[in-house]
Every structure is written in structure tokens, then in C-alpha cells.
């Protein structure tokens, strides 16, 4: 039971990560691979503040989010000033470089990471309480992002992604919107990091490698990029399915490559069968709606 609850905590954390990544990359159209490093900034900041200053967990997690926001604004301001595409390269450099820094500093625990992060909730209810907290924050994240991407602000984000030149020439400040969307997304990743640190009481650099942005991206794409519920479905699927097969009691030689095989198979299947993602085809999302009308009008023309 404990095991299943822990998986659910992990799912909640990845719902937060995938949703915020979707805000940045799916809605904002900002190509970045640095999401894991903002997750790391949140985790390490919370861990260090918790260990060395004994601050309350809530304060530590919020401080982690603020560090992630400040770092993301600095990255966005410098990278986006040059050109939109530059962000991808700059984010890659930022991700790889900062992780190296974390691996090599004494106070971050080097490659071994940080353990003995204070336990904030004790007793038999620890895991359920954490699940409740993480689940609530995940729900709050999904709600908040839905609020942002619908209504006047969402309209601005969509228009900017569609046609940035025309958007700016109408008097809209594209740079500010990009930086704000990036900062909100990265700040939320920072919160996910803080939750991770306090639940598992251990953080290490390899949890924040650049490859994790591929995992997050897969969640976003499989679930449905640019949809509110897509990343939720994606995160649940991609964490639950690999965990579920461990119950099959397969020999370790078969188990080990199994995760990679499932991952790749899912991506391939979705690319061919459901390119708009699992939720993408179902929702009334406009992109999906467009594809549907285009198909039907093409069909009518034949």
C-alpha cells in the first residue's frame, strides 16, 4: 500500500512538472529543455534551507520556487533578447552547465547529492498526508494553468504563437508575455522540486539530467500538447504503466529494458495513431478542432 501511495505522490509531482512544461512549450511555444534544472533548483534550495536553517517546509518550497523564477527570468531575458530560437540552445547550455556546477560543489553534496533532508511529517499518516498535499498542489497547478491559458491572457499567448510579428504590431508586448509564461512554468517546476525533496528526503543530480526533459516532453506529447488535461493523462500513464509491469514478476534481465521498450512503443504508436495526443483528439481544443474541420472539408472536396 505504502508503495502504491508513493507512486501516486510521484505521479502528482510529475503532473505538476508536465503541466508546467506544457504551459511553456505547448501553449507558450517556447522551446526549452531546461525544465529539469528548474525542478532541481527548487529541490536543492528547499533541501539546503531545510537542513541548514531549519526553516518550515512551506517557506523552503516557496523559496525554491522564487529561486527557479529568478533563474528563469535571467535565462529568458538574455536568450529571448537575441531571438526566439536561441532559447533552445541557451536552455540546453543552462541545463548542462548548472547541473555540472551542482555536481561539483561541496555544499550541494556533489555527485552524491543531499540526504537527511528533515522529515516534516512523521507517523503512519506521513505518506497519505504527502499524497494529499502533492495531489492538491497538482490540482491547483492544472487549475491555475487553465485559468492562464483561457480568457484574455490565453488569447494573447495563442495570437503570439500564431503570428508574433502581427501580434507585436498590434501593440502587444511579446517579450513580456514570453518571460512571464516562462517564469510561471519554471516557478511551478521549482515547487515540484521542493515537494520531491521533502517527501523523498534525498536529492541527487541524476534525477535532474537533461534526459528528464525528454520524459516530460513525452508526457506532454502523448497526453496532448496544448491541452489542459493532456499532461495529466500523460504523467499518469508514463509513470503508472512502467511501475505496473513490475508486478508481473518478470526476471530482471527482461524487466530492465522493459521500461525503455514501453516508452518507445507508446511514442511510436501515438505518432501514427493519435498525433494530437490522447486528450488532443477528444477535447474541444481549437487546434484539434481545426484538424477535424480541415479533414472534413478535405473529405468533402474529394
Amino acid at each position: 500500500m505504502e508503495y502504491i501511495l508513493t507512486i501516486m505522490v510521484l505521479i502528482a509531482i510529475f503532473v505538476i512538472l508536465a503541466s508546467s512544461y506544457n504551459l511553456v512549450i505547448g501553449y507558450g511555444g517556447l522551446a526549452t529543455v531546461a525544465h529539469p534544472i528548474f525542478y532541481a533548483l527548487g529541490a536543492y534550495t528547499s533541501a539546503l534551507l531545510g537542513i541548514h536553517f531549519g526553516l518550515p517546509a512551506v517557506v523552503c518550497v516557496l523559496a525554491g520556487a522564487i529561486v527557479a523564477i529568478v533563474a528563469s527570468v535571467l535565462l529568458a531575458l538574455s536568450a529571448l533578447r537575441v531571438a526566439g530560437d536561441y532559447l533552445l540552445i541557451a536552455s540546453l547550455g543552462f541545463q548542462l552547465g548548472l547541473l555540472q556546477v551542482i555536481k561539483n560543489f561541496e555544499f550541494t553534496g556533489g555527485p552524491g547529492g543531499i540526504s537527511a533532508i528533515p522529515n516534516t511529517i512523521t507517523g503512519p499518516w506521513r505518506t497519505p498526508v504527502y499524497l494529499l498535499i502533492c495531489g492538491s498542489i497538482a490540482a491547483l497547478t492544472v487549475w491555475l494553468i487553465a485559468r492562464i491559458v483561457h480568457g484574455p491572457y490565453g488569447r494573447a499567448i495563442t495570437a503570439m504563437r500564431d503570428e508574433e510579428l502581427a501580434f507585436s504590431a498590434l501593440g502587444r508586448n511579446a517579450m513580456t508575455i514570453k518571460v512571464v509564461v516562462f517564469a510561471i512554468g519554471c516557478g511551478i517546476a521549482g515547487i515540484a522540486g521542493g515537494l520531491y525533496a521533502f517527501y523523498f528526503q534525498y536529492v541527487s543530480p541524476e534525477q535532474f539530467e537533461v534526459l528528464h526533459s525528454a520524459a516530460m516532453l513525452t508526457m506532454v506529447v502523448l497526453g496532448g500538447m496544448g491541452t489542459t488535461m493532456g499532461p495529466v493523462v500523460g504523467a499518469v500513464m508514463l509513470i503508472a504503466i512502467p511501475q505496473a509491469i513490475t508486478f508481473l514478476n518478470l526476471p530482471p534481465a527482461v524487466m530492465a529494458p522493459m521500461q525503455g521498450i514501453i516508452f518507445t512503443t507508446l511514442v511510436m504508436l501515438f505518432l501514427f495513431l493519435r498525433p494530437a495526443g490522447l486528450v488532443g483528439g477528444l477535447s474541444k481544443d481549437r487546434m484539434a478542432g481545426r484538424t477535424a474541420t480541415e479533414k472534413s472539408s478535405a473529405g468533402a472536396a474529394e
Partner: protein
Amino acid sequence: MTVVLRVENLNKAFGGIVVADNVNIEISKGEILGLIGPNGAGKTSLFNLISGVLKPDSGHIHLNGRRIDGLPLYRRARIGIARTWQNMLLFTTMTVMENLLIAPRSYPGESIFKLTLARESVRQAEVEARKRAMQILDRVGLAGTADAMVTDLPFGHQKLIGLSRALMNDGDLLLLDEPMAGVEGAAYETMQRVVRQEAEAGRAVCVVEHNVSFIKDLCTRAVFMSNGRILQAGTVDELLASKVLTDLYFGV
């Protein structure tokens, strides 16, 4: 007459290609100025310089007496430069109404602070923008398409939506880049009527157009550009009578 736009000694070159060679232009309130010339003459580049897409190498641009050549694109739109694009640049995943709602000079909905702390003002702005958008769509005869996806409309209607979106900006200067290209029939009439009404209402309008009869019908004054330079300015009839210009233009 009040001068709305004054362009002084404007220069711009991309390497060896000169798109603006000491350009001087004035447009007054209520005037429709035609900008004609062969392809590559620098007409669209001049629009880009005025609206702020491009920065000039030298020279000044004044809007209502205020120097604007240092301002970024979005600020110039806010102080009153509305423009359309040769290839429209509509927001293709949005409806007609949404294309218009994003376009007023002031859009408090783009600020997270106003969205959280001054929600009433955002709501108010939305209501007003919606009202204005319906009025404009009514004027171009497309009120019925408000909720249609903009890409589902025929080309002539998309052109009118491009104009309508620019009209959401109630500034003093309106720049129209080939509004008639590919437009015919009823949409043509509408385009002509609306542009004329905008000038009558006091806007300074500048039109880049290859359709000579459109220029003839609407503009009192026109300038002829070639290779980034203004070769001649005058009434439309004067320009059309000039053999040098018509030879250049029609490539005879």
C-alpha cells in the same frame, strides 16, 4: 491641415540593397496618400520603418509631432499606428472575433498584474472591445462570421478581417499594404468604402497598392517610389501622366 506623419530624410540599406534613400513624406489628417512603384521599390520596407519592424539607419519619423523612430514596434502601435500586411498575418488558430479582440491599442488582459489585481478593468476592456469589434464587423458586412475560424473564410473576407483588425486600433495613422490584392466584387466595394470612411473620420491613411484604379478613386495625392527613392510626388493624375514613371512601373 494637421500633419499626422512626417518622415524626414529616412535611410535604410541592407548591405548594398537600399530600401529607403533619403525618403521624405508627410501625411495629414483625413488624407489618403497612395504609395506606388514596382516590386522591390521599398514600399513595404517604408511601412516597416514607419511601424517599427525595421530601424532606420538615419533620419527621423514623427507622429503627431512626437519623434517615434526610437520606439519599439508595439509602442508605436499603442501611440496610434495601425497597419495591415500584404499577406494578412491573421491569427490562424483563432476565430474572427478573437482576431479582433486582441487588437485594441490598450489591452489590459496582457498583464498578469492587471488580471489578478484589476480584474474589473480587464472585464470592462473586454466588453468594450467586443462592442467595438461587432461595430467594425458590421461595417464590413461580416458580423455573421464573428465566431467562424478565420481560415474558414474566403480570401476576400480574410482581407477584410485584416483591415478590421487594424481598425480596432483607433490611432491617427492607418497603413494599408496592398489591401486590394486578390480582392474583387463586393469585398472590393466594401474595402473602398471603409477606407474612405476612415479618412473622412479624420485618420491619415497611406495605401501601398498596385491596383491603379483603386488609387485613382481614393487618393488625392500619391508618391512614386523606385529603388528606395521617391521619384515623384503629386496628384495621381500627374503621376500617371508621367511617361518615365509608367515605363518604370509597367516595365515597358
